């Protein structure tokens, strides 16, 4: 078994979406994450706040942000436990963030460093 980090970017709903539409969208997330949990593939996950700070460079400059464009905004992540990349990508395929053209899922394998 390998672990993969799935990073969600962008927004899956219109800012003007109706309550009914938002509830329907939320239901899709429940189904998606709930399904992974049921198959014992879900390890953990969390949403991220829109605002944040960035510390950069040798001078350790602290700036507000990231003020990324909507579609680049990292909104959350989940960690899953599956056989291989193909399976991880297949799972990412069903992510509700992809209901919007601005949404994307980055799939990254967690590299396990063996004990010496």
């Amino acid at each position, binding site marked *: 078994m390998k672990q993969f980090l799935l990073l969600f970017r962008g927004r899956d709903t219109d800012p003007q979406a*109706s*309550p*009914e539409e938002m509830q329907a969208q939320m239901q899709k997330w429940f189904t998606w994450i709930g399904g992974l949990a049921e198959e014992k593939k879900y390890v953990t996950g969390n949403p991220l706040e829109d605002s944040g700070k960035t510390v950069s460079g040798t001078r350790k400059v602290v700036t507000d942000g990231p003020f990324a464009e909507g579609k680049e905004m990292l909104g959350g992540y989940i960690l899953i436990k599956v056989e291989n990349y193909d399976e991880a990508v297949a799972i990412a395929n069903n992510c509700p963030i992809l209901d919007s053209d601005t949404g994307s899922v980055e799939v990254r394998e967690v590299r396990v460093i063996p004990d010496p």
Partner: protein
Amino acid sequence: MLTDHLFRHESGKMVAVLTRIFGLTNISTAEDIVQDAFAQALKEWSFKIPPNPSAWLMMTAKNKAIDVLRRERLKQNYEQEAAYELSSQYFSIPIIENLFMQNEIRDSQLRMIFACCHPALSEPDQIAFTLKICSGFSIEEIAGALLLNTDTVKKRIQRARKLITDKSIKFDIPAGAELKRRLDIVLHSIYLLFNEGYNSGNKDNLIRKDLCEEAIRLAIMLTENKYIAQPKCYALLSLMCMLAARFDSRLSPEGEIILLAEQDRSIWSKELIDIGLDYLNRSSAGDEITDYHIEAAIAAEHCIAPKFSDTNWKRILVLYDMLKNVNASPVVLLNRAIVIGKIDGAKKALEEIKKIPELEKYLKSNYLFSAVLGEVYFQLNDFQQAQIHFESALKLTKSDAEKKLIEKKIKRLSRY
């Protein structure tokens, strides 16, 4: 899993409570905060649903409202009642906390129903605005449900918003004689909303049911306040429940209208009929008899007849005679004529229909009159007249289901 329409219902609640804080003139501030709370919920709940979703939404809305108050200090525009206390930062938090208590939430929702159904607004505007504000429908959803284009709905909502601001409509529950007058308007609006769902040509059954359920939900809210819960509220609720009980039996899977005589009574909702009968009992307190009382009693007669042939037409005619005295509308007179036909035959029915004032006008504008007249002539074996009226009915209706029914009747004529 969330309960069906949770967000929609919570939206109406939150907008109402927030409007207590910001005032009717700032209703869009309330709507923005609610939208914001939903966006946050969508983000956070996807990973973990809070144990009490409604309470979470309310608390989030409250915190966002406090943020807005601190940031924007819209002092001069606060709802008057809360203005004094809210003008001081020190007092504002307890006041706001109080508005989010259960009984205050309900009170705010009632104020909102009365504001949306204010007589300064036209009936179509009232319905669109009620759906938007009290029921949490979007412009597109309202347009879809009422079979209007989105521009028309937008205009209605804008007009309502403007009127509410221009006429300085108070955000309160009227009392005394004013309550009686305003409650009649609210009930009428709720019944129109119900009929939009019950009789509309919308092909989507779920959307139509939604509207009926919304109307019933709003009416139930009225009965939760002891001053507003007048017998006529129960009468309207009773009527809507008993009509809703037959909802599924009125259309075939192919979308054809099934007439009362042919409806499968085994799929009528026994539960809704019982609730309807219970409301009918409660509506009999007091001495005011409204259309709703009589129409509910008529609906009850149909609901309790085990078979169509068991229908107590004589009793129904007595009720129609009463209804005629309260409200002699052309449709009431037409329905009464049909009942007379059931008792004394088609010849009598025809005589009654011909007595309807300005019949010619209605024959030209409402398909129902031509359709009924066509059927009466058919029963009298006057196939030529039947044909003329059915064809005229066919031209007058836009509903596919109604068209199919009339076409079937015309086809039947060709056999004679």
